[in-house]
């Protein structure tokens, strides 16, 4: 039985006191423990940013890579060893700005992994610049007169890209978030969880209280996450009311199901030696 204690890493998090990231790492650990995943079979891949330090704080395998690229790294890792449970940890800058194209492509490919995005609507580690999810008019060091760009709506993008599990959680509700992450890990395909994550240091607008006032649990409204068109409509809801929970879910083949090489089992288990003589013969 995997316990949360077992998943505690010797590395102490260096996030700001009160940061939403603490609740997210706790939820990730709880999800792994509650699903009783063997830590050696879990690979947490992250990019760059405050969020992406997370792999250091969980005692599983990890890959803390470069900015914007955790999804392709994780895609390669998952396809090369399908026995692994792969969790991608990213941020709004990492996933929706520099890594935007990988986000859309991973979702349309339906790579079998969980994608948890710490979305605090600001760049924290680089000390407070605008983010693609910053609301229009939002003031930062780089937008002193307020952002003049419309915010990216990640859930809308994921639904439009053919996402098979599209959800939103809130760092202020770790129990709910743990449930979502568990579901995302278990989902066969890209289990996408956008997490509202207050940055207590640089985002003085989108605070715990701001989110709490607006967030509501979709599950308690009788919403059914089975209709892509309805989900697309729901995904546009932002402002006075922000829906939490699973917006859309469906079963579809995952990336790898149709790859001939994987029919023989995980790639990493296949021998490296092979006979290329018949291939050479074809050049004669």
């Amino acid at each position: 039985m995997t316990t949360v204690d077992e998943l505690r890493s010797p590395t102490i998090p260096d996030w700001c006191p009160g940061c939403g990231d603490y609740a997210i790492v706790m939820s990730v650990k709880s999800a792994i423990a509650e699903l009783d995943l063997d830590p050696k079979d879990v690979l947490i891949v992250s990019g760059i940013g405050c969020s992406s330090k997370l792999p250091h704080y969980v005692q599983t395998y990890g890959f803390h890579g470069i900015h914007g690229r955790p999804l392709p790294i994780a895609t390669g890792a998952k396809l090369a060893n399908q026995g692994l449970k792969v969790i991608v940890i990213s941020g709004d800058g990492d996933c929706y700005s520099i890594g935007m194209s990988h986000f859309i492509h991973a979702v349309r490919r339906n790579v079998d992994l969980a994608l948890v995005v710490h979305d605090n609507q600001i760049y924290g580690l680089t000390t407070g610049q605008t983010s693609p999810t910053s609301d229009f008019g939002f003031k930062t060091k780089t937008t002193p007169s307020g952002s003049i760009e419309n915010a990216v709506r990640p859930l809308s993008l994921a639904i439009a890209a053919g996402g098979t599990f599209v959800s939103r959680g809130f760092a202020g509700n770790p129990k709910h978030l743990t449930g979502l992450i568990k579901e995302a890990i278990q989902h066969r395909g890209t289990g996408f969880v956008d997490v509202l994550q207050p940055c207590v240091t640089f985002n003085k607008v989108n605070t715990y209280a701001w989110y709490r006032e607006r967030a509501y649990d979709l599950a308690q409204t009788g919403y059914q996450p089975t209709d892509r068109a309805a989900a697309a409509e729901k995904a546009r809801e932002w402002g006075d009311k922000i829906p939490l929970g699973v917006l859309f879910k469906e079963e579809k083949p995952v990336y790898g199901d149709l790859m001939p090489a994987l029919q023989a089992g995980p790639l990493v288990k296949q021998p490296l030696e092979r006979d290329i003589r018949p291939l050479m013969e074809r050049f004669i």
Partner: protein
Amino acid sequence: MTDGQSSRSLSIMIGGEAGYGIMTSGEILARCFSRGGLQVQTDVEYPSLIRGGHNTYQICVSEKEVFGLARRVDVLIALNDRTVREHQSEMAPDGQVLFDLYEKPIDPKKDFPDLKGELVPVPLSDIVKEKEGDKVMRNTVAIGACMALIDYPLSSLEDVLRSTFGKKDAEVANLNIAASKAGFDFIVEKSKCSVRKRIEPIQGAPKRMLLTGNDAISLGALQGGLRWYSAYPMTPASSILHFMAAHEKDMGLVVRQTEDEIAAATMAIGANHVGVRGMCATSGGGFCLMAESVGLAAMTETPMVYVLCQRPGPSTGLATRHDQADLQFALDASQGDFVRVVLAPGDPAEAFYHTFNALNLAERYQIPVIVISDRVLSEGFRTTLPFDLDGMMIDRGKLLSDEQLAQIPDYRRFEITDDGVSPRSLPGMKGGIFVANGDDHYETGETNEDPEIRTMMMDKRFKKLTKLIDEIPGPKMYGPADADATLVSWGSSKGPCMAAMNALNEKGTSVNLLHFIYLKPFPRHLAVEQLKKARLTIGVECNRTSQLDRLLREELKLGLDKKIRKYDGRPIFTEWLVEKIEEAMR
């Protein structure tokens, strides 16, 4: 048609618009020769477009090994009049131009005033119509006619046509065979022209493969246990992607065309990270995008192989042409100091063996390895003996087994060791947990910014050099040991240098060649002796700034005496190089 002289070597060119089937015919013709025991080097020139433009396929064929390309054309197969106009001055004085008189009446003196050689009209279009073939089959008629013109057995063409088209469609094969025979018969029976140069098959010659550098790179990687290949299409690297995709089933490979080169490289790093051998390839522009990942592989000590097939830059440059100007870029691409291997094979055989070695080096030293090719090597076909696979052992270095890992109580993935290489666990293994980290880190992978630890870890990664440098092969000397001039070159310029060296030595000018495959880490002690011995060193490379010379100056404080540079986007032709060497030696 009357009889002609036997020739030891020939240069044949097929030209026409894109979409005329130039490449296919060129390959078919080249294979006729290679199956006939002759040796071949081909080159294809084409602009970056799909239809129209001007494409040529050149085949240099000889009884001996062909290293370089001739500027001279002995037989020109012109599928349009532009081909004659553009290449009329390259014709050998006793050369022949096979030409289709289909579009308009031609007055050779007026239309092709500079034409050297004989114009041999063949009604290609009429013959195709007669045979009820598609217009694109003019090329097959033309290569049939060419066979007659050089007195090469038509049966060899039939054999190649059958193996090229027969697998898909016997009907298409028959149609093509009939068309080629009609072209052949026209020359034999109706044309007034004579056989001026003939080349004959060599009976009992060893069987040779006819393959490109990219084919050889692919085969070398497969022999080296490659199971993952990801790439974004870019000339001249794309044919590796095509090859790998065609063999994903029979070779058990995952092959992905990714959204961009960043994804291609980082996906391959992900695959390598969990223990599969992965590789990616691109050209200069794509390698710019991959550059950050090179440092990631180095910092996380993940084995990784990049293939960089150069083309002329900067920027899009000449998208389908030849150049060797990415050496300095490859030597230093990505921020920070780290250990890497950069190697540049000179021909398909070297491409095979050293791509194989690249995969071993990457894994044994847990570093990025860059294999450099270029348009001429990647896309030119060369006859090559089947690769000798004996003794080619896949070596996974310090990769731990579950049993070995179980013996290590306090496992640290980035443990400081004597040789800088740490025993490696893989995700999924019990007791081997670690974080691969692009931030600098201590032995466990945990981020660490302590100045002492930073210094220790940098030194740890650089300690890999000690052993690595010992197994880096030095440059290879070709030709007479003692010569008046030593050509110094790297990568695919080996071919033209060999050709020019042989031509000069035959003329009584004594020249040898010092050729580098491994460029980083630089085999200093091996290079310096040979360079110091040389009486006159002449650098030969396809770039504007003599990049190898710059490297030699940096590594050995020893520049080259003379430098021959070419950066017009076209290959080095033997005649041109001979002239330049003679000039440099004057």
